């Protein structure tokens, strides 16, 4: 076999996968977003129409839900970053070399547990009169179900995706750079603020790609602990299921895709994509 044939044989499976499964699904989503549903028969009308997008732009509810979803994703990302920084710093710079792999395992372990189980565990924690309420001094003292609970639980679920890139970034940061800052008269906090954080911004942005996109598309956690809260994912789910309007669901689903594309293009220059 010539090298060219061998190369083709080697690449055939991934190429088919990429084109059919990955790009194909995405293309179908995008194309079907321009179809409509016959309101009387419920049958899909495969004819090009901007109707779905006009509805999304016209109706206030979709704008509100979109902004709320972006807000939740941003809040989750910030919360994850704030929590991940000290944790990753401890893992990379304070803990002994022997403890480090164990800490990484500890961070990864929750990812092995089912997403659903973890979300329901939080439902129990957050219940009216539940453990969190008791801890805070009585029924109704905790956040209960609703938007804050959604942010809290999503931040819990996606935290490892932030810790790992930040940890990797900190591990690559030479100790001598931090020592140089101390040598030049800076206290610990000053070094952290002026040297450590700016140097690991690309790692934080890389982690944010995960926390932001995972939050933006989530609907299960919202259903379990969100109370009446709705995010884009819930609208997509409702249109797939109850409303049986697949084209409109597809049109709604393009919103998070678009937001992520904008985000990725924006952070491309920061070097964050090399950190993934």
């Amino acid at each position, binding site marked *: 076999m010539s090298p060219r044939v061998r190369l083709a044989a080697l690449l055939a499976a991934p190429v088919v996968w990429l084109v059919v499964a990955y790009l194909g699904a995405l293309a179908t989503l995008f194309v079907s977003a321009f179809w409509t549903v016959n309101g009387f028969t419920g049958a899909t009308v495969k004819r090009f129409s901007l109707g779905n997008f006009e509805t999304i732009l016209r109706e206030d509810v979709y704008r509100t839900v979109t902004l709320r979803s972006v807000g939740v994703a941003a809040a989750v990302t910030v919360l994850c970053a704030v929590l991940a920084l000290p944790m990753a710093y401890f893992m990379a710079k304070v803990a002994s070399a022997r403890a480090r792999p164990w800490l990484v395992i500890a961070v990864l372990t929750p990812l092995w547990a089912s997403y659903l189980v973890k979300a329901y565990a939080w439902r129990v924690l957050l219940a009216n009169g539940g453990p969190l309420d008791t801890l805070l001094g009585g029924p109704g003292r905790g956040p209960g179900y609703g938007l804050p609970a959604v942010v809290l639980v999503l931040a819990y679920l996606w935290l490892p995706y932030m810790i790992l890139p930040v940890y990797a970034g900190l591990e690559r940061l030479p100790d001598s750079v931090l020592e*140089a800052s*101390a040598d*030049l*008269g*800076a206290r610990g906090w*000053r070094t952290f603020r002026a040297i450590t954080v*700016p140097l690991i911004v690309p790692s934080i942005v890389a982690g944010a790609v995960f926390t932001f996109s995972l939050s933006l598309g989530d609907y299960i956690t919202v259903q379990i602990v969100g109370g009446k809260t709705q995010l884009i994912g819930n609208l997509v789910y409702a249109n797939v299921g109850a409303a049986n309007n697949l084209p409109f669901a597809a049109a709604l689903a393009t919103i998070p895709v678009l937001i992520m594309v904008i985000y990725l293009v924006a952070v491309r220059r920061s070097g964050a994509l090399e950190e993934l």
Partner: protein
Amino acid sequence: MGTHPAIRLSGLRKSFGAVEAVAGVDLDVADGEFFAMLGPSGSGKTTVLRLIAGFEQPTGGTVALGGRNVTGLAPHRRDVNTVFQDYALFPHLTVLENIEYGLKVRKVPKRDRRRRAEEALEQVRLPGFGGRRPGAMSGGQRQRVALARALVNRPRVLLLDEPLGALDRRLREQMQVELKALHREVGITFVFVTHDQDEALTMSDRVAVFDAGRIVQCGSPQQVYEHPATAFVAGFVGSSNVVTGPAARALFGRSGAFSVRPEKLILKEAGAPGTVAEVIYAGATTRYVVDLDAGARVVVARQNSGGGDAVHKGERTGVAWPDEHVIEIPSGEDENDALATDDRAVDPERPDADRVR
């Protein structure tokens, strides 16, 4: 600057787990001295530097700077600055911002620090480079920025950790000259760590030779080179022929351990007879390994200046030496092999008798 030494280390010890990296070091470094700490890797010299800077805390003993005991103080509270082996420049800041960092932390007004940073850049001969990022500079340039960043704070002591280790040979020789000039110009104490004996000998006023966590000899480059205190020093600082036992009695008429530098030996028919075992051409010099009939193997270095007959491998020859270049090594160590480029640890029972000043 008063009567106190710039640095005084007393009974300094540092252990990492079961490993004793620094095993009792006493040392005074005078104000304005250019002081070298020389030793093989793992000899404790870098740890001593880090103990002075405050990056490590000693297991025992004290560090005093200018008469003030700073043991236990954090690095930011010590009047020293460090040039790191990897330069440790801040990659997200420009060259000027790097140099200003220490002044900014100490709240020097903006205009003052800009002026001082630009002066420092000129001092290291990089005027106009202030706007660049460290990543866009060569190793030699980064080295200079690291120097400027440390010197701009006008510390009492400048610590340099293998400062020239990462540079190529030509640049290294050039920086050696410049560091000397810079030292004269700023007049503060320079302490630098190196494993390169040439660097230590050419640059410093005094050298401390480290082995196994201790200072085995401390003195001027000349003292250390011409009068090595131990076989280790003789072997590590430059190469040396150490002759002991019956061979020493036969060649020098006395028993004991003796050191002769290869360049002090002369190939001469009338000398002690022997056979040439190896001829090694090394550019400026040629090194002849000679097995003497008296039972010792010695290395003779000869300048390739055209003088003297060619001597070939396997030929009979003689080796002679001026008596004043035969140095008796004081300690009674039993050296069996006569060719001492050895790195064996010195007797741990030997007290640090080499403390100078």
